[in-house]
């Protein structure tokens, strides 16, 4: 067996109502593995926020999830417009989400700050007009 369990998800940008399916599937699998419940919660929340972002801003993309016994590494990659000012995007309350999703309770400008809060490591690679790669790591603290 390889050291990590690898999962791959295509995230459709066409149907907003399906956003969150990948993170919920990862959560279910982590539970079957008997993973630490605090780590599961943090993975579920961080990945959910990132998945929503990908659908709202970048018309979808894909997620690669590597599950190790002591940590989870997630890559969320999209071919969206890129983030012009990452520091600004990291500020709580800053959002460029359109009104139609704000009505659903999204776009509070807490996506990236929350992702940072719940992960142990977060790295953004973004190029205007090309896309964004978001690398997340959640470590089991125990």
């Amino acid at each position, binding site marked *: *067996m390889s050291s990590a369990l690898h*999962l791959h998800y295509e995230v459709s940008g066409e149907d907003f109502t399906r956003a969150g399916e990948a993170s919920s599937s990862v*959560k279910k699998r982590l539970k*079957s*593995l*008997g993973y630490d*419940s605090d780590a599961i919660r943090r993975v579920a*929340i961080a990945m959910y926020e990132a998945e929503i972002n990908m659908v709202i801003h970048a018309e979808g993309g894909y997620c690669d999830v590597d599950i190790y*016994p002591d940590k989870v590494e997630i890559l969320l990659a999209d071919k969206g417009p890129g983030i012009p000012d990452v520091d600004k995007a990291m500020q709580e309350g800053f959002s460029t989400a359109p009104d139609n999703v704000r009505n659903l309770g999204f776009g509070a400008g807490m996506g990236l700050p929350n992702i940072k809060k719940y992960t142990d490591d977060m790295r953004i690679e973004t190029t205007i007009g090309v896309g964004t790669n978001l690398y997340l790591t959640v470590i089991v603290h125990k």
Partner: protein
Amino acid sequence: MTKYFHSVELDAEKCCGCTHCLSRCPTEAIRVHDGKAQILPERCIDCGECIRVCPHHAKKASCSTLDDTKSFKYKVAIPAPALFGQFNNLDNIDIVLTGLKAVGFDKVFEVSRAAELVSEATRKLIKENKLKKPIISSACPAVVRMIKIRFPELCSNVMPLLAPIEVAARLARKEAIEETGLKSEEIGVFFITPCAAKVTEVHSPSYVEKSACDGAISFSKIYPELSQAMDHLTEIEPIAQSGLIGIGWANSGGESAAMLGDKYLAADGIENVIRVLEELEDEHIRDIDFIELNACSGGCVGGALTVENPYVAQARIQNLRKYMPVSMNHIGENIDNMMWENELKFDADIFRLDEDIFKAMSMMERMETIIKDLPGIDCGSCGAPTCRAMAEDIVMGRAKETDCIFKLKARIQNVYDTLSGLS
């Protein structure tokens, strides 16, 4: 007795091995083997969904009967408020309570009285800000069991107060001892139950060592005798001591309305309950203080052991509550005796593949490979509820790949092709 007591049982004679219960079980606790359904005891939460959907009535709840009460010198009935919604044209709940005496009980104590105490105690705890928010109601035992086996992070959100049935049983027992001078073991306290989960709670409680109830009799079992007795009453005793808050607990939303606040939500039906719990676990639900969850649609009136349509019963309950005082039961200064004896502990072993994470990961890897090869239509013919559950059963050693009818067909086709190539 095994580690898990369950009130939900299978009548193997009646089971024809169809897939109705299989696909509806919210914890994937049912498998069909050799043409008969089997319940995985560690996963079953006794919600009663399978009892409700089985077209052959092969699933049943093992309840007490009126005969079981006869071994006690003094018999006490504690009826759930949903019972009052089972009768047509009922305008006075004393008719039901007197009816219970007519079928053999010496004393009747409404669970709705205890519900009012639990409501008041909850309001007190919320006001004192002593509990982790949002607070999840602990009244529905199927929901509590669901949290215990699937939602580790939410165990500490469950309100550590006894459910009304337990509070009622204790109070009724105490009163009976005082009134009769009998010993506790000479007094039989029987809950009149709308559901299977509460039968389990009586025999194998989640958060007390031993329930103060001696048994539970289902609505459906007592209904014929009770309704007949109600028709032949010569006088109606004034027994009822509940207000509209207590009676309201029969319906979904009743318990949360009794919080007298506005930051609450009430969800009913096991699928909806799971959805709310998932969202809660992912912290998507905010600004809510109290969450009422009922495994049955409509609330307790929708229990699998009731006789009346839940929505008809709901309307009757609403009607009965008219002109009732708000609440007729009040707590004292100290509510320590209403708190749980044991903490709610997560049962980690139930859904995990293996204790050893390395082994679990390699099992999951095998599962993912198997799933890719299965048809993915979740037909249930193999005896597992979904292709995913089937893959899990294979890696757990509970099933083999050719249990899948499509896999078997492909293999037979293969053998046929090989043989025809020989001729």
